[in-house]
């Protein structure tokens, strides 16, 4: 430990003409949980009141020292170097006057360095966007856990972490290598950090935030690092990259590290300029190419190979001098769902552009076969919509659109389309038609009435980007709409609702892809309405709180109890599936049977959120609404598959049919440890819920061995099998075959292809993270023959989107409300621990299990009724390669598991007859309805 007079850490705060924000930065250091530190304010010879402010800070706390450069250096290096020289502590950090250190930054990094003995420690950066008040982590994937890295070669991707400020350095390390910031160049951080990473014997990475980076609103004064429109700025970036190259040569770094550095340069630094190209004048682009192409030629080929395909093509076009096309391609960087305008085909290969490239080199670089533009289904079709021209007619905006369809998926018929435009509320949808206009191109005209765009109660301030949706039957395809590059923005004044005056600007978004953009601002007297904002917000909050109180569970339970004094309404049935998820599961099939039999009942369905799955004409109540309370209280029958909310005690006159939503691997009811070990009142609450059931549907003896006692259910059982499984047992009937074909059409399954349905269950603690999809889909797609289509259906607690590069083989089945459509349409099921396998066995089609995390699952907190290896009706696979092998030659596997499959079927499907719906309806409504 250092002597008492020496602080533990020195923080060098550099400043230039920033008197306003300097105190915030310095205060963030003085408020650190580490007291033993010093602040060096290193002033690059400011000309504003910075010196006064700095001296005040110095006077107020003995830990602050102010040093001032004699001449302005114009950069960050000289002040930081001065700071290093005058500072005394054994550890050093850097801070810019417009940023902050979070409270634990110094202490936490200091402890880490003392513990590890490493040369420096680096942590994550939180970026704070002043315009919106939002925050985002900077390259969070680099900082996932606390780790000591022994040399850059162990983790070369750390080169992306090229800031100097989110780090604490051991002074000995700085001095040993004479590390200083290079004076006279910009992006000095990059060289300094590359040197530090390269020279360190070891460094520590920590996952927490150690630096808060303020990003000023775009229209404010631009700092050095965001002056990308200046050619000098490009040159500066390359200069520093060259210096890093030279340093790597001197230091004798490996080719692999050079590749890592080149990749970072292309992916981070150069990518910024590429993305800006659509918004630069032609001459600028030419100058840019001239300035950068020689340097690009010095980068390792391997670094290019690591880039996403769209970016690689863009760089190739730039280097080949095809500048117009470079700009065209630059608009889709980072947007894999947007297509290039043209793709040509020759010899089974697809190439970017209008003509087949002439040279072998060009063919290699422009090959886009792997993007499978032509192998998409309608929903994932990769298209490009551009505004070709537009004019205004009064307050209407007439757009002439051109749609590019390089995969030739839209055919040669007119396509129904619409433009979507909304501000804060309802979205205005304007339909139009796209007419074929040459191969792979469509053109159309649409008139947007700007005066009809619904605005919020206070009008609207902000910008919006209309999108385009194409429609084929009930399938849709939505994509962004690109604006017309390089035209002058157009402004109109529009008055909404007679008094709300707005100025509306129409332009091409001046960044990124350059979407068509419409910006609203309030004008005239109406502008003042925003002053009412705070008052209005306060009223809104109060109203919301009052409403919440009024609609509380307690009030609903009380009113419910009062309503149950009224007589039941004969024949009123409340249906609910899986907490109101939609028209599906056992209740759906019971309802259909009621309709088929024409029974005189009055059916009301409960829904939570989405109502799109319900057939027209079905009466609906929102789950939890007052209407729902009323229906619950008055209904003669409840039919449900999950458990109706516990606050509704059942009156004796109401009959409750519980169908439950499946058999399970996982423990249920009181077998679930968290319930078994819960407090008495939680247990009795559960018991009270179960005691409401009058009748429970049972699919198998096994169910009666597990689920029934686990819930201490002692009422009557209907040993009929599940109503929802009728269609599976009777899958060979024409109605079902037709339903299967419809689903296959909807999924875009080519004739003759086989469908593997991949339906894993969710993972505890991984809701909505996509963590349940554990098969490496890319590996699967790369190694499978063409005749399989993979349909992924994520559990409703999880989510899934088809990766754009796999959409030619992988489909998303998550949007099918009733999973039976998918089961019927599939040729085999791949799952893990999902209860779906118990239903699927009724189809007697192959079941495969992908269980790479079986140990975790088995020993998880919840506990299971079965050891999967004992009941598995198919192979338990742990690697994607095993799955590939099985799918390539499925028949022997089916044969091998035939006996086990049969046992599984007997165990879990013993009561299924294919006529459960009828039997259930007869039993439940038959006698009781009278």
């Amino acid at each position, binding site marked *: 430990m250092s002597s008492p007079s020496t602080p533990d850490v020195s923080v060098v705060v550099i400043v230039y003409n920033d008197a306003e924000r300097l105190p915030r930065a310095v205060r963030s250091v003085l408020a650190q949980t580490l007291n*033993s530190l010093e602040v060096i304010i290193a002033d690059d010879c400011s000309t504003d009141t910075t010196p006064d402010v700095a001296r005040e800070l110095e006077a107020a706390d003995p830990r602050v020292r102010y040093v001032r450069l004699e001449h302005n250096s114009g950069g960050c290096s000289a002040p930081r170097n001065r700071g290093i020289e005058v500072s005394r502590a054994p550890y050093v950090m850097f801070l810019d006057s417009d940023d902050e250190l979070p409270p634990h930054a110094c202490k936490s990094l200091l402890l880490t360095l003392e513990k590890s003995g490493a040369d420096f420690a680096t942590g994550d950066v939180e970026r704070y966007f002043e315009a919106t008040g939002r925050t985002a982590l900077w390259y969070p994937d680099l900082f996932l856990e*606390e780790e000591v890295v022994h040399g850059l070669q162990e983790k070369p991707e750390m080169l992306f972490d090229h800031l100097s400020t989110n780090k604490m350095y051991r002074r000995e390390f700085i001095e040993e290598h004479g590390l200083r910031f290079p004076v006279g160049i910009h992006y000095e951080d990059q060289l300094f950090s590359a040197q530090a990473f390269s020279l360190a014997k070891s460094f520590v990475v920590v*996952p927490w*935030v*150690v630096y808060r980076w303020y990003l000023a609103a775009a229209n404010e004064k631009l700092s050095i690092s965001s002056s990308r429109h200046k050619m000098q700025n490009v040159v500066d970036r390359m200069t520093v990259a060259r210096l890093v190259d030279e340093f790597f040569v001197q230091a004798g770094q490996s080719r692999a590290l050079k590749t890592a550095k080149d990749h970072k340069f292309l992916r981070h630094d150069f990518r910024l300029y590429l993305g800006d190209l659509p918004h630069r004048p032609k001459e600028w682009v030419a100058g840019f190419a001239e300035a950068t192409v020689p340097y690009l030629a010095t980068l390792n080929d391997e670094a290019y190979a690591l880039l996403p395909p769209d970016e690689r093509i863009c760089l190739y076009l730039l280097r080949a001098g095809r500048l117009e096309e470079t700009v065209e391609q630059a608009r889709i960087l980072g947007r894999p769902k947007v297509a290039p305008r043209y793709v040509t085909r020759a010899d089974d290969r697809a190439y970017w552009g209008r003509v087949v490239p002439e040279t072998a080199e060009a063919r290699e670089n422009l090959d886009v076969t792997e993007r499978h533009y032509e192998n998409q289904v309608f929903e994932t079709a990769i298209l490009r919509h551009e505004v070709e021209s537009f004019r205004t007619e009064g307050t209407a905006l007439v757009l002439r659109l051109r749609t590019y369809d390089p995969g030739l998926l839209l055919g040669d018929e007119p396509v129904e389309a619409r433009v979507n435009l909304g501000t804060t509320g309802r979205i205005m949808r304007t339909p139009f038609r796209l007419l074929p206009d040459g191969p792979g191109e469509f053109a159309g005209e649409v008139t947007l009435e700007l005066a009809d765009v619904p605005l919020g109660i206070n009008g609207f301030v902000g910008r919006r980007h209309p999108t385009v949706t194409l429609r084929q039957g009930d399938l849709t395809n939505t994509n962004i709409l690109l604006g017309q590059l390089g035209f002058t923005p157009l402004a109109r004044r529009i008055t909404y609702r007679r008094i709300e005056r707005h100025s509306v600007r129409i332009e091409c978004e001046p960044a990124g892809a350059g979407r068509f953009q419409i910006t609203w601002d309030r004008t005239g007297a109406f502008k003042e309405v925003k002053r009412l904002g705070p008052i209005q917000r306060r009223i809104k909050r109060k109203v919301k709180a009052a409403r919440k109180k009024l609609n509380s569970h307690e009030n609903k339970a009380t009113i419910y109890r009062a309503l149950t004094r009224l007589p039941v309404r004969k024949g009123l049935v409340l249906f609910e599936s899986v907490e109101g998820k939609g028209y599906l599961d056992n209740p759906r099939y019971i309802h259909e049977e009621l309709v088929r039999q024409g029974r005189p009942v009055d059916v009301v369905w409960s829904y939570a959120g989405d109502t799109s799955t319900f057939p027209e004409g079905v009466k609906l109540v929102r789950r939890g609404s007052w209407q729902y309370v009323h229906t619950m209280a008055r209904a003669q029958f409840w039919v449900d598959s999950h458990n109706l909310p516990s606050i509704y005690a059942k009156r004796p006159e109401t009959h409750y049919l519980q169908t439950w939503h499946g058999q399970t691997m996982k423990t249920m009811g009181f077998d679930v*440890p968290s319930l*078994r070990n819960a407090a008495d009142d939680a247990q009795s609450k559960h018991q009270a819920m179960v005691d409401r059931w009058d009748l429970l549907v049972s699919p198998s003896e096994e169910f009666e061995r597990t689920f029934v006692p686990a819930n201490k259910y002692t009422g009557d059982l209907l040993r009929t099998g599940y109503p929802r499984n009728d269609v599976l047992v009777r899958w060979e009937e024409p109605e079902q075959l037709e339903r299967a074909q419809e689903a296959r059409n909807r999924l875009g399954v080519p004739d003759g292809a086989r469908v593997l349905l991949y339906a894993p269950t969710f993972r505890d603690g991984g809701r909505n993270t996509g963590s349940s999809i554990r098969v490496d889909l890319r590996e699967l797609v790369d190694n499978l023959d063409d005749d399989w289509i993979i349909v992924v259906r994520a559990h409703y607690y999880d989510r899934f989107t088809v990766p754009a590069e796999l959409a030619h083989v992988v489909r998303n089945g998550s949007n099918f409300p009733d999973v039976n459509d998918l089961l019927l349409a599939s040729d085999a099921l791949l799952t893990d621990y999902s209860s779906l396998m118990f239903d699927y066995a009724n189809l007697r089609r192959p079941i495969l299990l992908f269980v790479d995390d079986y140990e975790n699952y088995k*020993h998880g*907190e919840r506990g299971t009724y079965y050891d999967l290896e004992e009941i598995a009706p198919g192979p338990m696979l742990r690697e994607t390669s095993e799955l590939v092998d099985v799918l390539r030659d499925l028949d022997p596997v089916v044969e091998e598991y035939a006996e086990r499959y049969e046992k599984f079927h007997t165990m879990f499907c013993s009561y299924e007859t294919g006529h459960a719906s009828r039997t259930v309806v007869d039993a439940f409504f038959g006698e009781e309805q009278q």
Partner: protein
Amino acid sequence: MRTTRTRHVFFVGIDVDSLGGSQRVIHTLAQGLGGRGHRVEVVGIRTAPEPFRYHDEPTYEHTTLYPDTPAAAWHAKSLTERLSPTRNLSARRNKAARTEARAKLQARFDAVPEGFVVFGSPWAADWVLPLHWPQLKGIGQYHESFLQARTSENKDLILRHYPLMSKALFLSQGDADEFTRLRLPNAGVMPNPLSFYPDAVAPAGTRRVAAVGRLEGIKRLERLLWAFAEATRDAHQDWELHLMGDGPQEDYLRETAVELGIADRVIFRGRVSDMSRALREVDIVALSSEKEGRPMALAEAAACGVPVVSFDLSAGVRELVDDGVTGVLVPSGDMPALARALERLIADPELRCTYGKAAREHVRPYALEAVLDRWEDLFDEIDR
């Protein structure tokens, strides 16, 4: 001899006076730090239904903020009840009681110029954070495993409140690492102290297996009964199983013992007051719980030189039991493996002796004096 500044330390918990593991830790620490001359104050936010007196001659002050056990949250059963003035009045009274309790703690804080506030749980922090105490440094503790935090509100409370503390303390490195992964910047480790560490111990040779803890569902003692019956079915029928603790499952466990035919060899000892002595009279300690964070019973057994057989339940358990060195860990829920491990230790007195000696050494860092040193180091670290 260490020399250190005299500190003012508050230990704040929701309930610090019930009989329980985490409460014992608070009082042991308070007594230890008080004994070292620090000014310590234990603050219970609520009164315990059955208060337990941990020290006859406490070296620390002791306050409870609420004067009596507050009424349970109330929901109206009917419209008339909802509108009942007495009910609404009592709801208002509860609110007033909280304001008063907070004011009481604020006054205690105001009386101290500098020092530390140690929160027993994120809930305690949640209750105290609205107060004003800039002159004090906060330390947040969490006494359960990360897994337990993840499946409850505790995780979010910790991530919300503990970054505001000088330090967030977890019982094991594994748990601290998990929170670090969630980008908590100030996670550290502080083991709970053993309330005893006998000077010398010798193998008991009493042929007793013991389980220590309340007889409640989560301890899953029926699994241990089964494993014990298995392990002593063919031989070693002179061995006994001692259950040290009481609780709601006693009748159920007695029945189970009868069913397994070992009723005569299962001894229900009830609540044991002198754990140090009780442990020195057994040969093996076994643990068959559903889940545990960092069970003190295992550390106490080790302190008494008793080898342990346990399910591998958490990073905390792995930290206290070095599998194959100080005891045996078997996969969670694997009852046959538990039975086999028991049988092996029962059959091999030499192995018990080797494990027992190693176990004692293994938990030496958790002896009270060592842990108190760590607390004083932590205070110094926070002061840096």
